[in-house]
């Protein structure tokens, strides 16, 4: 059953403008990479048979990236540069870009030349095959094994097991989405890593395409190792959101039921023994009863509060993705 989730980020509706493809590139302090990136992108995109637009988000760069970008964009009407006041993070930058994008297909990628623009046609072809989300898979990564590759593999495996969406490479920024699908997804605070997972909530069909990976040649990497803990916590939160964003009472209440049964059983047994003889229940048993009853009520009330939160939010009002086909009677 397709679940109703996701929210609209608004912005211009895709089908009303003539743009087929939007490339969204968040960028932070990548001044040296601006020119090669723009050159490569224009080279690849000009060869495609569709109308495209390029949106680069300057995520509060302090090294003059904006000047470089504007120089590259001079007179090039398909090039939009959006400057954020300060560094808001990749997710916020991506969200802004997606909001401003007008194309039917939206492709996000990194601004540091680790993704190769030549992979873009592959992604577009896959979307045109009928998929809603296409993720890049950096199968042959040229990064240090112990500090980047291994933790990455572990993280991806964990995410796959916990959320049920098996994506080999969640961390690859090069992804393509159908505009209608991605614009409905609420994006905030480092959720960009989980976009395929969130998209699958609305019933999107996800495909993977092997893409090239270039190690950093210029500039410094901005992402450290300490994010495994954060990613783990995020996964748990996302898992919760996936399973119960529409009906929290069912999820929390579901946890209350076993506690309720256990507590009833233990209480009854204790009362039976106590009333039957002069046996005094020990502190441990009483504490266990207390714990179980407390947990039952706790989960119940959490479920109620969750229902309240969902009721007054807008995310539940967005329709799931899908298509309508009308059967026209002949004759």
């Amino acid at each position, binding site marked *: 059953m397709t679940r109703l989730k996701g929210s609209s980020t608004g*912005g211009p509706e895709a089908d009303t403008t003539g743009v087929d493809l939007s490339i969204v590139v968040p960028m932070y302090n990548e001044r040296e990479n601006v020119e090669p990136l723009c050159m490569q992108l224009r080279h690849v995109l000009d060869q495609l048979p569709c109308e495209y637009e390029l949106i680069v988000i300057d995520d509060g760069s302090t090294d003059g990236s904006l000047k470089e970008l504007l120089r590259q964009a001079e007179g090039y009407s398909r090039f939009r540069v*959006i400057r954020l006041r300060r560094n808001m993070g990749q997710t916020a930058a991506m969200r802004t870009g997606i909001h401003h994008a007008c194309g039917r297909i939206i492709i996000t990628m990194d601004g540091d030349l680790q993704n190769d623009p030549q992979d873009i046609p592959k992604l577009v072809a896959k979307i045109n095959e009928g998929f809603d989300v296409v993720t890049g898979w950096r199968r042959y990564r040229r990064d240090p094994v112990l500090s980047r590759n291994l933790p990455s593999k572990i993280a991806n495996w964990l995410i796959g097991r916990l959320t049920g969406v098996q994506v080999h490479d969640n961390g690859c920024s090069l992804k393509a989405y159908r505009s209608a699908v991605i614009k409905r997804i609420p994006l905030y605070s480092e959720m960009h890593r989980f976009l395929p997972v969130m998209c699958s909530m609305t019933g999107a069909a996800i495909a993977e395409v092997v893409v090239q990976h270039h190690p950093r040649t210029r500039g410094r990497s901005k992402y450290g190792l300490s994010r495994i803990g954060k990613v783990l916590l995020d996964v748990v*939160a996302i898992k919760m959101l996936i399973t119960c964003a529409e009906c*929290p009472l069912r999820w929390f209440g579901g946890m209350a039921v076993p506690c309720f049964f256990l507590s009833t059983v233990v209480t009854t047994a204790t009362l039976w023994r106590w009333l039957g003889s002069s046996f005094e229940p*020990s502190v441990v048993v009483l504490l266990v009863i207390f714990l179980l009853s407390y947990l039952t009520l706790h989960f119940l009330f959490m479920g109620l509060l969750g229902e309240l939160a*969902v009721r007054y939010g807008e995310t539940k009002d967005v329709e799931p993705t899908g298509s309508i086909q009308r059967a026209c009677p002949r004759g």
Partner: protein
Amino acid sequence: MLNQLDRSSALAREADEPVVHGDHFVSFVWVCTGETDLPRTLARYQLAIETYLPRCELIVVINGLGTAVSRRLSTTLEASGLPATLINLNAVSAESAALKAAFRHLQGDLIVLLPSYAQCDPEGVGEMIQALDSGLDYVASWRMPRTDGRAGRCRSWMYNWIARRLSGVSLHDINAGLRVMRREVIANVRLYGDLHLFLPILAARHGFRVGEVPVGHLEERRVLSGEGAGGYLRRALDLLTLFFLLRFTQRPFRLFGGMGAGMLSVGGLMGIVLVIQRFTGTPVADRPLLILATMLIVLGIQVMSLGLLGELIIYSHAAKLSDSYVEKVFQGGRLKDADHAT
């Protein structure tokens, strides 16, 4: 004399961005509360405001002081000849609400928030506007040198030190009432409840350039509030609010999930140890460790659930996230008029 920026929003000015000087329409906003010594404060402010005529306005908000006071002030204002708007709130409202009531009537592109009593030398406004022109979006005042006693200074220093550490914004006097800012700051930063206290921090988080200017300190108020133990408690609660504002509103589960999981695992471990001890003969009934283990398990689950609930609330309202971080949009290298939703 200018203290520039903060660690968290280290913005360097792009070299060829035009600096807007000169002709501003300044809106002065003054919220009168029970602490205000009306005639005296008005006299002081009048001197400062008059220098900006004719391109200025004064918006006065009477925060629940009664119609008699409001009428008196209204006559005084008319007599003073300043272009003034008087908003009378019937009941005492939260200061953010009073400010928002004033903001609806703003015409200026620069906004000066005047403290309810003459806390800072209004002459400092000129310096602050100059600082704004030299590339800032929000200028806070720094009350120097202070005229209150050691205790007050010490308390203020501690409060600001903690706030600096928590937020990364290096301002020395967050609670100074005299503030100057551009209109964009008001348009983009949502205020409610007690958040006006942290306006500079919120502005910095939105990416506005924040600085401070030392301004002379006066203390001309009628009622001395916030002294003694009550003052400490209130400030401590304010800092707690700040902490939660900064950490909880983005990813609550990161903060609470970690804490909760930690407590749960410690409690669980203790529980296992106790169970083993029970079955190997050592009595556990009277041990405080038992109660502690139970309490930790309970707290751990509770804290984690609160984190999840926070995530659920944020997710449910994610449709309302705004585009308030966007500074400029360029199409083909040229600045485009903002057509994005806020």
